[in-house]
């Protein structure tokens, strides 16, 4: 009974909890409810993941309407994997959020803040669950609108302009997606992903389908911060409250990548991307993204902004994996979605802990703090090593598969770019390490205490996860391999 409803519960529980949270009195109660909901979702997501781990598919018909007429939630391993990442990151971020949010958000807005966070979680989970392209657009807008609100709650006034900028670009992206969906509907008369996959090949030559494809790729590209459509991301991540940055950096762009994979490979079927120059475009933009964003990251003076640019670079790696158009490349992309969520969340958490203590993430302000906050510093170093891709960390696994995929295609230039990107990552992570550890503190007389436990524990959970998934690749790589078979439509 409940097995069949898991997918729906994952969407309904946060959606119902959000208004309840909004009317709770400000204080710790809204946080407690949000925490409970996110942990419940995490448990459900794990359970769901176990059920589809063997490659089976759960189909849930909303309101009992048969697909393709009704909305169908169709859970295969790809959905379940993304839902697991989203729910898992929410579950780790919320314990961290308590103190960080109390410090950064005005007291009278705390319950509204958590209500919005729940809506954002709901939107992201909904995108992961749904098997209907229009439903996907609606969930995308739920998550986007709530993330604009969350970003605008940052302490500095620049958070407002960052949020506005994101709103404009995000809405253009979502509207592009809407145009694309409308055009494929006009060609096929269907909105169900599986149904579309069956109907679209018959009309592949039509120009409408090509136009739709272009609109969808660009629209989703805006959402996932594909270079050069990434301009909203650095500001949004820099000025958002720490907990929001952690959550969004770990989930929002990853879910958008999932939408891209789903649209390109399942809705339009694999062949379409290879016939059109899409795969080459992904490679080109991936290369430019890795190089340009990594170099930009080196020049940044704010630790959060530096990491935000690094996120754009990491999206570049994922795009490279997609662009290789091979099973190995896709596996690398899917593994990197997971691993990047782990490392970037850990890094933003460590920087958030610095912000919690000194109120700034500017590189001149954080000088010398590494010795005063050894645990935070340690977390930052290990997560940074993972970002670089040092063996023994999660980052190494995804880079390894990516390089293998490049060698398989004999794309030597791209293999070199991947390695060069790692070297650039060494430089910008070193910049943080140097400021934190090797430069004298601004004010030697003032001692800064180590971050509180409720900030450190979630950070270290993620740091240890980075090491664990770097040593034990069974879960991630196996899941990714099966996911790639689903994406490429290989019968089980």
């Amino acid at each position, binding site marked *: 009974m409940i097995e069949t409803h898991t997918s729906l519960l994952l969407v309904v529980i946060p959606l119902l909890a959000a208004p309840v949270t909004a009317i709770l009195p400000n204080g710790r109660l809204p946080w407690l409810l949000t925490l409970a909901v996110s942990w419940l979702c995490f448990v459900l997501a794990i359970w769901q993941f176990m059920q589809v781990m063997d490659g089976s598919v759960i189909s849930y018909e909303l309101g009992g309407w048969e697909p393709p007429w009704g909305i169908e939630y169709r859970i295969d391993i790809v959905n379940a994997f993304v839902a697991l990442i989203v729910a898992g990151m929410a579950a780790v971020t919320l314990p961290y959020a308590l103190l960080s949010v109390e410090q950064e958000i005005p007291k009278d807005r705390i319950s509204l803040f958590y209500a919005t966070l729940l809506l954002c979680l709901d939107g992201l989970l909904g995108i992961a669950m749904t098997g209907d392209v229009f439903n996907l657009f*609606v969930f995308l807008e739920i998550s986007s609108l709530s993330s604009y609100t969350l970003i605008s709650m940052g302490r500095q006034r620049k958070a407002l*302009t960052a949020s*506005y900028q994101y709103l404009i670009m995000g809405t253009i992206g*979502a509207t592009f997606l809407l145009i694309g969906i*409308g055009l494929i509907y006009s060609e096929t008369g269907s909105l169900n992903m599986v149904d579309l996959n069956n109907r679209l090949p018959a009309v592949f030559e039509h120009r409408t389908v090509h136009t739709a494809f272009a609109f969808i790729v660009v629209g989703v590209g805006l959402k996932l911060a594909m270079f050069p459509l990434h301009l909203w991301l650095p500001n949004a991540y820099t000025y958002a409250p720490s907990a929001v940055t952690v959550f969004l950096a770990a989930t929002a762009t990853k879910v958008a990548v999932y939408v891209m994979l789903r649209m390109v490979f399942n809705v339009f079927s694999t062949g379409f991307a290879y016939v059109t120059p899409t795969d080459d475009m992904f490679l080109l933009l991936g290369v430019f993204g890795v190089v340009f964003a990594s170099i930009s990251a080196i020049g940044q003076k704010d630790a959060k902004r530096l990491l935000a640019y690094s996120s754009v670079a990491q999206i570049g790696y994922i795009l490279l994996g997609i662009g290789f158009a091979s099973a190995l490349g896709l596996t690398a992309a899917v593994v990197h979605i997971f691993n990047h969520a782990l490392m970037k969340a850990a890094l933003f958490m460590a920087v958030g802990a610095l912000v919690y203590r000194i109120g700034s993430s500017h590189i001149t302000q954080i000088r010398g703090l590494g010795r005063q906050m050894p645990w935070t510093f340690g977390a930052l170093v290990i997560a940074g090593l993972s970002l670089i891709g040092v063996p023994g960390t999660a980052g190494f696994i995804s880079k390894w598969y990516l390089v293998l995929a490049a060698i398989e295609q004999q794309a030597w230039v791209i293999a070199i770019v991947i390695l060069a990107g790692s070297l650039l990552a060494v430089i910008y992570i070193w910049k943080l390490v140097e400021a934190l550890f090797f430069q004298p503190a601004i004010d030697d007389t003032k001692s800064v205490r180590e971050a509180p436990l409720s900030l450190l524990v979630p950070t270290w959970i993620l740091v240890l996860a980075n090491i664990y998934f770097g040593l034990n690749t069974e879960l991630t790589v196996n899941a990714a391999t099966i996911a790639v078979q689903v994406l490429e439509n290989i019968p089980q």
Partner: protein
Amino acid sequence: MDFIFGHYNYWIVIILMMAGFYTVISRGNLIKKITGLNIFQTSVFLLYISIGNVEGGTTPIIAEGVEQYSNPLPHVLILTAIVVGVATTALGLALVVRIREEYGTIEEEDIHKQDESL
């Protein structure tokens, strides 16, 4: 000629879409940007409604003597999209209000200048 006049609603869609998109990109006034965004979104609503129209079809209400109906689904879809559009506009305008409270201006250039002077 038939191609041009037969698809006149699509031409309107394209003109509105480009006008809105251009406004978003070219204007520095935050309210005007939102207005442009609205026009841009509205053009998509028209696109969906045009798609749903069936030649010779009537309103999709069962009536005697009528056999051809327009497709109501795109219209229903666009109702949802209109709601999303309204929410986006409301949030955008709310942000503009907050920006004006903090910066005292809603011109993009002035905001940039203030941010840089810090």
